[in-house]
């Protein structure tokens, strides 16, 4: 009846497991009670969970990411603490727990922090940046969100029922195969990946179509904001690289569940094929995480330097180059498997070529700052911190791309330091910059800058303290994933790294305080115009938070900084000639239902509860069928209602709220006049 699920699966075998389970269950109960106490269940269901509004879906993605960030960071803190103490001793974590922790840390941070964070920001902003009322497929968007949430839920429940994978976030077989990891951990990992991978693929397709088909009049490809450009590129990367993850995870699942021999030791399996397929997805994935952050940095650096973005064309081509090249370098993740020199050298050189467009981007941002008026808003400070720190990561990345040097550094803490050096400043700082930058757009009030700056300093100091020692330890021959060690000269570095993790803890606390403080005084930090930072792109033309339809009348665009030009020409905040009816998608319960079914299906598969697998599969088909035969999924918002909403909004804005544009001249076709220039 319950497959291999027995009472043994409950975590009463060790205090670490019980602690984790208690926190997870306790957190769940706390949230449940809080919602009940606020009597918010109905609002939550009708306004949020069933919503197909891209802004609300985006906010839910970011909330998911922030919750999982805390969970993933606790893992990091536990690892740093373990290694700080475990010189010639077992430390406080037995290997079994340490292994689950480093496996879940990587899995969570990549799949359930970075991916939802960037997808959330994209969801909130990109339709507005391209002057669209919605994404191309609002319902599919809801399905994507709930698939991702289902994957996250599978990781979380593994703390309570059974165990998580002990095979690392990359889960290389044969160790992750059924012979060496017979438990349910790797199955949890696989189903979390597959479920959220389906969600990501759907998001990718959705945003390609949105950007290609839903741009407002006049917005040619070369007038799209940089964040939209990076989103288009990563959506293509997602659509074409996630199939590789699906294939490799599916094959490993077949190996584990049905006794296939794709990656087993012997019987004709080939474990290096796993590495090959995994990294065909894995390397583009790195750029999927980083490119949106690059887009955010581009927006932020132009806005807070009060200048046009330097080298827009160059940045577009650099982004496209990076996107294509990211598919050509995957072998550098396994130079040491014994390939011949030709193979290694060619993939090594291909890897280094990516450094060129990446370097170009850094310099383009640099020259955007040049002759600007830089305002040290938290977003901008995160950007500067990124530019300085990311260069170091880039240099160490090229070092690892040299195959002979990689023979020395592979699998060492140097590698760990390198990819954290890419992903913390390169991706996470970008998302934080985006959080500070776009928060008022999503919620209608600004975030507190003081705590924003504090969070930045804690994060960057914490980053340097945590990862510079790991670079050194790599030179000293320390391998990654060591539960304990015998070399006393390693310990001081590991203690410093642990102190760094504590600084990062402060950074996360600062963000929590920032959110709390800002919410407390939201009335005084209201964003009335919808344009708190004197922004340049179209998302600032809507109100904060935007009306459900974003734009009452679709804007027309003649240049890259469309809204900036509108403000100069006095076209911003003007009521249109007339309003029209707007078609809106209806909310639907099917998205969350499919998410719940995906979770149940994954859970049932992990525990071999086959009747439940079949039931969930059939119910999913039924849900899809109900949705597909529903030709009544939209409603019309009458023009009169639109006019009322817009009139109320415009009435609130007084000229005093608007930004002083006298420093600027209109540009190009927008001005209708030749450039005067005030250089």
């Amino acid at each position, binding site marked *: 009846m319950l497959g291999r699920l027995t009472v043994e699966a409950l975590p009463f075998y060790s205090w670490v497991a019980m602690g984790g389970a208690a926190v997870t269950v306790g957190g769940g109960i706390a949230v449940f009670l809080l919602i009940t106490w606020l009597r918010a269940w109905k609002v939550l269901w009708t306004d949020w969970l069933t919503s197909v509004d891209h802004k609300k879906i985006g906010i839910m993605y970011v909330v998911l990411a922030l919750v999982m960030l805390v969970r993933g960071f606790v893992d990091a803190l536990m690892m740093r603490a373990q290694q700080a103490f475990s010189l010639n001793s077992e430390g406080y974590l037995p290997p079994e727990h340490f292994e689950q922790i480093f496996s879940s840390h990587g899995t969570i941070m990549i799949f359930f922090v970075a991916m939802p964070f960037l997808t959330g920001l994209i969801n909130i902003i990109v339709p507005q940046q391209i002057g669209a009322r919605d994404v191309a497929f609002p319902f599919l968007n809801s399905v994507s969100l709930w698939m991702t949430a289902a994957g996250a839920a599978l990781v979380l429940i593994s703390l309570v029922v059974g165990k998580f994978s002990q095979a690392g976030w990359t889960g290389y077989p044969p160790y992750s195969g059924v012979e060496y990891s017979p438990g349910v951990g790797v199955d949890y990992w696989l189903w979390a990946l597959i479920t959220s991978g389906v969600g990501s693929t759907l998001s990718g397709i959705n945003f390609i179509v949105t950007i290609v088909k839903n741009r407002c009049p006049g917005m040619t490809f070369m007038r799209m904001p940089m964040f939209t450009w990076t989103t288009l590129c990563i959506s293509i990367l997602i659509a074409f690289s996630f199939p590789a993850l699906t294939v490799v995870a599916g094959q490993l699942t077949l190996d584990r569940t049905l006794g296939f021999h794709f990656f087993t030791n012997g019987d004709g399996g080939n474990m*290096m094929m796993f590495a090959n397929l995994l990294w*065909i997805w894995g390397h583009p994935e790195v750029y999927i995480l980083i490119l949106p952050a690059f887009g955010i940095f581009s927006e932020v650096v132009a806005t807070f330097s009060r200048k046009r973005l330097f080298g827009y064309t160059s940045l577009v081509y650099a982004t496209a180059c990076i996107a294509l090249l990211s598919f050509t370098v995957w072998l550098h993740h396994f130079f040491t*498997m*014994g390939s011949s020199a030709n*193979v290694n050298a060619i993939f090594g050189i291909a890897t280094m070529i990516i450094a060129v467009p990446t370097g170009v981007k850094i310099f383009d941002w640099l020259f955007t700052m040049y002759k600007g008026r830089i305002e040290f808003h938290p977003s901008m400070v995160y950007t500067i911190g990124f530019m300085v720190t990311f260069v170091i990561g880039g240099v160490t990345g090229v070092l690892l791309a040299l195959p002979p040097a990689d023979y020395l550094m592979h699998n060492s803490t140097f590698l760990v330091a390198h990819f954290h050096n890419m992903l913390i400043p390169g991706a996470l700082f970008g998302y934080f910059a985006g959080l500070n930058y776009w928060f008022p757009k999503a919620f209608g009030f600004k975030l507190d800058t003081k705590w924003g700056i504090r969070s930045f300093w804690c994060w960057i100091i914490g980053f340097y303290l945590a990862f510079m020692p790991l670079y050194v330890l790599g030179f000293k021959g320390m391998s990654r994933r060591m539960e304990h060690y015998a070399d006393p000269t390693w310990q001081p570095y590991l203690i410093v790294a642990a102190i760094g993790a504590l600084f990062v803890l402060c950074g996360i606390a600062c963000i929590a305080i920032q959110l709390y403080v800002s919410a407390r005084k939201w009335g005084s930090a209201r964003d009335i115009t919808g344009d708190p930072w004197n922004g340049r792109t179209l998302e600032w033309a809507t109100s904060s938070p935007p009306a459900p339809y974003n734009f009452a009348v679709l804007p027309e665009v003649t240049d890259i900084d469309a809204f900036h030009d509108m403000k100069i020409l006095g076209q911003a905040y003007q009521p249109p000639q007339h309003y029209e009816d707007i078609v809106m998608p209806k909310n639907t319960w099917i998205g969350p239902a499919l998410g719940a079914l995906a979770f149940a299906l994954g859970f049932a598969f992990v525990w071999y509860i086959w009747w439940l697998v079949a039931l969930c599969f059939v119910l999913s088909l039924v849900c899809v069928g109900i949705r597909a035969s529903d030709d009544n999924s939209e409603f019309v918002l009458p023009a009169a209602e639109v006019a009322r909403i817009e009139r109320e909004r415009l009435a609130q804005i007084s000229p005093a709220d608007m930004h002083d544009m006298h420093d600027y001249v209109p540009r190009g076709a927008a001005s209708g006049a030749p450039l005067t220039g005030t250089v």
Partner: protein
Amino acid sequence: MNHSAERSLSTYLTGFVLAVLLTAIPFALVWGGLLAGSAVYAVIAVAAVLQVIVHLVFFLHIDLKSTPAENLFFLAFAAVLIFIMVGGSLWIMMDLHHRMQ
């Protein structure tokens, strides 16, 4: 993908006849053992590629002029990526195979 294109019976029949031919050739070669060595593989590969093109043109109505540019772009992009992924994987794994003997 394209609504205006003429989808006449003759298009489908032409495609069908070409496809049958391009299927028959490799099957006949293998069955009859008419060719030997790597030439057989070459013929199979060429016939397969040609037949894929026949299907794209006559059944899926891909046309450089009337098919939307974005559809062509993604078709080409997918072709390039499939070449990189499959070609790269085979190159890597064959090389490994030789080095691990």
